[in-house]
């Protein structure tokens, strides 16, 4: 009898051990969003990515509109309850480094930054400049004033290289392009967004871009056309924004985070997650894409852009294109081909020729 009990107990211990070794079936995921989860842009795309995990039985819990200054505290709070914690804004970076040190048993993933450690923190990002470059081609083909306006959020490397990418894209089909940038120094301030868009409009820009998290420029372009008959077009940011101004919408860069998040959480479940990978995904991995074309965009423009996109998907263009082809800085210095790699992109702090605006 004793032997049987011992056997049963042993079997139970073995099964339990093997379960815990093979990781967890249901991963608990925590995350920080910088804006409201329904901002219609950046934060909404992340929220949708995280929510898609619930289909696979994972538990997700997030904090929206989390102040960047409180990142360390909030991430610590999430770390106590979750297996993996994501922070989805550049400004959370240093807070996450601190939190990761304090909570060695939780895995930390930081979006759009460049810091990590050797045990439990890594970063990930999307090569959004690839899609920006493509939208730039469309903008270059469609502008009549040769002036493109950008409502800029914060002058950080990711935004700077996106503006450079769209400028190079536009110049590739129209060498006379001037790109005007107004910084609003906020990710989310709708009234200021609108005012900046109007200021760009007053300045003669007929294609409006935004790098902030709300669809202001799309609305401004639609109204300017409907009300004042102005020939203005808009580009979306982060999410499909065509519904906010269907008649004057061209396309836009947009994110798909669900694939990245599923992969990372599956790794945590399987116990195979590793640091020091600095995942960087682009058009080919479908992390970044073009949002659906506007109804009034000429077919020729769509064809031209989609053709370039296909060459990219077919591996004829490398991951760092257009920067890998070399660029000319605003001050005239030339950066030769094949010198701009991940590190140079992560720290890009100069505008290319053709961009007008403070930096």
């Amino acid at each position, binding site marked *: 009898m004793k032997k049987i009990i011992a056997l049963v107990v042993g079997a139970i211990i073995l099964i339990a051990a093997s379960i815990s070794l093979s990781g967890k079936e249901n991963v608990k995921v925590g995350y920080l969003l910088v*804006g*409201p989860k*329904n*901002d*219609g842009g950046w934060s*909404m795309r992340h929220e949708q990515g995280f929510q898609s995990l619930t289909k696979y039985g994972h538990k997700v819990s997030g904090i929206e*509109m989390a102040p960047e200054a409180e990142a360390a505290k909030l991430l610590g709070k999430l770390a106590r309850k979750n297996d993996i914690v994501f922070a989805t804004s550049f400004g959370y970076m240093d807070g996450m480094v601190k939190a990761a040190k304090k909570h060695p048993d939780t895995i930390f993933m930081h979006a759009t930054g460049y810091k990590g450690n050797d045990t439990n923190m890594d970063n990930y990002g999307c090569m959004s400049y690839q899609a920006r470059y493509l939208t730039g081609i469309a903008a270059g083909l469609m502008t009549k004033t040769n002036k493109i306006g950008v409502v800029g959020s914060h002058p950080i490397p990711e935004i700077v290289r996106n503006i450079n990418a769209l400028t190079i894209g536009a110049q590739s089909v129209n060498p006379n392009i001037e790109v*005007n*940038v*107004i*910084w*609003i*120094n*906020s990710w*989310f*301030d*709708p*009234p*200021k*967004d*609108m*005012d*900046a868009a*109007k*200021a760009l409009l*007053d*300045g003669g820009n007929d294609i409006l871009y935004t790098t902030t998290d*709300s*669809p*202001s420029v799309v*609305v401004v372009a639609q*109204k300017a056309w409907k*009300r004042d008959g102005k020939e203005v077009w808009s580009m979306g940011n982060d999410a499909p924004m065509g*519904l*906010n*101004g269907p008649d004057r919408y061209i396309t836009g860069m947009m994110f798909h985070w669900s694939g990245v998040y599923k992969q990372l959480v599956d790794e945590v479940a399987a116990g195979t997650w590793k640091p020091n990978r600095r995942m960087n995904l682009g058009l080919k991995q479908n992390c970044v894409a073009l949002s659906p074309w506007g109804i009034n965009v000429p077919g020729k423009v769509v064809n031209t852009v989609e053709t370039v996109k296909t060459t990219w998907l077919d591996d004829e263009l490398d991951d760092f294109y257009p920067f890998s082809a070399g660029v000319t800085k605003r001050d005239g210095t030339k950066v030769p081909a094949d010198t701009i790699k991940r590190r140079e992109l992560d720290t890009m702090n100069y505008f290319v020729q053709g961009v*007008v*605006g*403070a930096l």
Partner: protein
Amino acid sequence: MEFFIQILIAAVVMGTPLLFATLGGVISERAGVINLGMEGLMLVGALVAFVVMLNTENYFYAVAAAALASGLVSIIHGVVCLMLRASQIASGLALTFFGTGLSGLFGDKLTGETVEPLSRIPIPGLHAIPVLGPVLFNHDVLVYFSYICVGLSWWLLYKTRLGLNIRSMGEAPEVCDSLGLSVMGYRFFALIVGGMLVGIGGAYFPLALTPFWVDGITGGRGWIAVALVIFAFWDPVKALGGAYLFGLALALELRLQVLGIEMSPYFLKMLPFVLTILVLTLVTIRNNRRGIQVMPAALGKVFFRGEKH
């Protein structure tokens, strides 16, 4: 020159919601009730205006509903700090968080919806005046209504018996009480009227500035209005100047960049608040020398009937 005028036009547009909110704050604080809940009231006004506009496509209904809703929410503040005599500061702050949450909760489903913004109606004759015409007389009706509200508030506060009584409530409620005036009644009145104006300020966001719904649509302008009430020394006419000055700071931040003038955005962002502290300090020093008291003496003080002060 054209560029200069554009900046001034933007300053008026950006200043208009601030002006409504500041007038509302002035009226309630003149009666002795501090309202730190302005950001919340603005958000409630903005949400209600947007919803009503979406369903009725009638600007008048939208503005009226916003005023009504914010007026109603102000009653909560009144009940807590006038009837139950809790701290006005705490109640006001709670009101802000309440309004922020409420607008987020009910606005959740509205994200992405758009409305037709108010159109500009140039005032015949006046809009042709150089500089002043385009800057002041080529706007939407709510901007004109804000001019009227400045005049009305001034007239109400300084030219009517009602206004005198309201101001007295903020200076010496115990005296008013001994004269048989209802302190609670007048303070409630001022608080609700003030709240309605703040709500109209909130309505200006979805009806004119950002004709779509996003959470946190006011971008924290309610807090600027809190500072503006002090900056304007509880005076409706000074509120006009203050609101446009702050509007100018908001407009400049973007347009200086177009001119290629580099100025730290953080400096411009803090400018309204620095100005408020500066003006408050300077004017208070001057007034102390002359023995003038500008701040309503009983502002924020809980009034207990029959208690000696």
